[in-house]
């Protein structure tokens, strides 16, 4: 019988997605000891299989300080994690399909002026001139020239690898089976293989964060969502911008190799761990894709996939200290929009550990918001 490995460190992190991994990296850069436990492979879940949009435009205003911080991190990605992860500031264009869509894009631009996103509204003749490839239903849109896209398959694992190079102890294929707290120290146990003891715990387990929050009497209404992604065969390059649509529905981008990556709709959860894109969702996405980009009419889909993201009802993450347990910090529930701000969330978590406060406002993401009202019973995950 092999004896269980026991480890003492400053901070234990559950979850090797982009949030947990970037927190690990930031903590190591502060000289703080880290052990990260990931039940699968780092960046292999939502952080690695999402659409790859790196956009600030369209986020709630409360997220923009965090998004701006992330924007600066993305700008120095190669020096930070040793790869550009195919990150491109290619521009993000949010399409309006009606005058009222256009009005709402204008409203967003004026509301977000303080954040200097540099939004440019484009319509009519200028629209056709700038993007002749766009389908007829588009009447205009809003361009954020410095937003862009990246390859999540490469970026998210690279954060974990960078953290490891910086001295974090990363344990992949180590599911956390037990979490305990004796008032001073947390204890995490993974099977009969590993026990980690640390005074600080970061809950960065994405869609699987609910049980840890509940374990510390903070049940939140976290539910899983399964976005559908499809990719076409490579096509001659015609589009730089990453596209979204006001009101949602479909999003798309063309990668350097020529493939179009498209997302939208909801997939199927086969079981707790596996997801699929169903044929109805693929059909809807295909119809929308042709409408948005008529050039796709004669292309083929070669691949589809889904994933599991954690959603909260207000579509805002939980980011900040626990309300019940000193030393516990949450960073989860990014509701399908965590890829861009993930690295900033990681830095914020590191600051919270070191300083007890964040230099970026995160009040809107407090877990308190689920308990502020009369003590109703929130739906456990």
């Amino acid at each position, binding site marked *: 019988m092999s004896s269980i490995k026991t480890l003492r460190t400053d901070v234990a992190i559950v979850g090797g997605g982009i949030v947990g991994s970037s927190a690990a990296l930031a903590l190591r850069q502060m000289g703080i000891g880290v052990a990260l436990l990931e039940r699968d492979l780092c960046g292999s879940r939502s952080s690695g299989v999402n659409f790859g949009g790196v956009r600030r435009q369209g986020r709630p205003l409360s997220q923009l300080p965090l998004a701006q911080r992330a924007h600066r991190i993305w700008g120095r990605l190669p020096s930070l994690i040793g790869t550009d992860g195919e990150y491109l500031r290619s521009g993000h264009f949010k399409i309006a399909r009606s005058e009222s869509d256009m009005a709402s894009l204008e409203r967003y631009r004026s509301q977000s002026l303080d954040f200097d996103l540099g939004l440019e509204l484009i319509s009519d003749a200028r629209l056709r001139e700038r993007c002749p490839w766009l389908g007829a239903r588009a009447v205009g849109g809003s361009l954020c020239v410095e937003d862009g896209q990246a390859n999540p*398959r490469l970026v998210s694992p690279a954060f974990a690898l960078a953290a490891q190079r910086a001295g974090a102890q990363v344990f992949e294929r180590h599911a956390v089976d037990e979490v305990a707290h004796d008032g001073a120290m947390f204890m995490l146990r993974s099977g009969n293989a590993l026990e980690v003891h640390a005074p600080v715990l970061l809950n960065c387990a994405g869609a699987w964060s609910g049980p840890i929050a509940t374990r510390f009497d903070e049940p939140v209404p976290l539910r899983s969502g399964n976005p559908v992604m499809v990719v076409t065969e490579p096509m001659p390059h015609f589009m730089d911008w990453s596209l979204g649509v006001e009101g949602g529905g479909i999003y798309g981008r063309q990668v350097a190799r020529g493939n179009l990556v498209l997302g939208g709709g909801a997939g199927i959860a086969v079981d707790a761990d596996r997801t699929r894109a169903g044929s109805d969702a693929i059909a809807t996405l295909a119809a929308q894709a042709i409408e948005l980009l008529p050039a796709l*009419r004669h292309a083929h889909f070669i691949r589809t996939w889904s994933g599991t993201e954690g959603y909260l009802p207000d579509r805002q993450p939980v980011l900040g200290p626990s309300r019940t347990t000193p030393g516990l910090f949450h960073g989860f529930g990014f509701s399908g929009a965590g890829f861009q701000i993930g690295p900033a969330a990681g830095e914020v978590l590191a600051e919270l550990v070191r300083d007890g406060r964040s230099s970026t406002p995160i009040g809107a993401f407090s877990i308190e918001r689920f308990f502020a009202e009369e003590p109703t019973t929130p739906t456990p995950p």
Partner: protein
Amino acid sequence: MTASCALQPVIVGAGPAGVRAAEALVAHGLRPVVIDEASRAGGQIYRRPPASLAQRSAQALYGFEARRADAVHAAFDALRERIDYRPDSLVWNAHGGRLDVLHGPTRSTSGVPYGQLIVATGATDRVLPVPGWTLPGVYTLGGAQVALKFQGCAIGQRVVFMGTGPLLYLVAYQYAKAGAKVAAVLDTARLADQLAATPAMLRQPAVFAKGVYYVAWLRAHGVALHSGVRPSRVLGDATESRVDGVAWHDGREERTLACDAVGFGYALRSETQLADLLGCRFEFAPLHRAHLPVRDAAGRSSVEGVYLAGDGAGIMGADAAEWAGERAALALLADHGVAVDTARAETLERKLHKLGGFRQGLERAFPVPSDWAAHAPDELVVCRCENITAGTLRQTVSVNGADEMNRLKALSRVGMGRCQGRMCGVAAAEILAHATGLPLQQVGRLRGQAPIKPIPIQLAACEPAGDAGA
């Protein structure tokens, strides 16, 4: 027969396994749906030329297999009116009791519901690339055979066949019989392998005799046969636009030979994507060097109502496919309360079991070259869809620590192209296992994803029509 009235099983694949499964179901009063990607039944092995082509005799098309081919075709033709037959139809996805089917000629999609499903999806060549394999004029052995059987043409004027496996000599023989110049047959297996395997092979004396006959015939007709070779590369002309020859190592020195086309392959690999999408449990099968959907002796998969038959669940050959197809159908019937001939079922299981020993022998006679990955140069393109080289894969292991197939895919793009790893997956797994020092079974397998083959977006956009037939 009340139980059977409600039964309308769906069979995917109309090769030897699918045809015999359909026959058994029809014999018990059922009218199965038979979905097949080809325009005519027969599968890859008994593929029939398009009806519009001048018909050659079964003897000319299938040689020794003519009688078997004729029997399978005749069985199918007799069933034709008693089954719901959907040729030219690609099953590209499956979920929740429904198959998503793309019908080629009408360019339409449909959803075919099923309660019971027999998966008989067959096999393709096992490809272990060699430098130069992406040159025009290089085909898989199966591809070379299809050109001959289906299109009535040869892949070149002067052809070299290389690799290993029983198909190597069969295709060379078929080409030579059809009048093509076979410049040489280069077998990576050693003569010693074949001799050592003889006792096991003699368990199927008729099959063994055919193999011996092909070799003798080729030798008698002046075809150079080399065994124990290591293919070095396919040579291209100055513009790299066509094949010029092949180079191989014979153990002592490198040798070359001029040719204008190459057929190559290392036996077959199962087409398991549909079983994967259906949720069947997979296990590593050492004999096949592959992860395969698990089936019991009767063909039941791990998923209730899903049965597996033929080469799609492990390469056992055409004769075994016929037996397994019939056996799976009997299992399906029995599982739904239909009385079946249990003695027949036992006989079929016995025959299938007996074939196991012969298969072991085949594997010994034509082993996959265990040193392939070690000798694959860094610049060798493994994944031709995405242009991913062996060097890139090795670097993904050494720099990023990839030790599992899906991780390797995510980080390197291998298997992300049109073939979705169906062609390159075997080679990528061999490279990964070699680079990590892990056993092949431990590096895992690529997860199946829809679509099984690329689908036109325009067709995907059609709401799948509900299916009246099933």
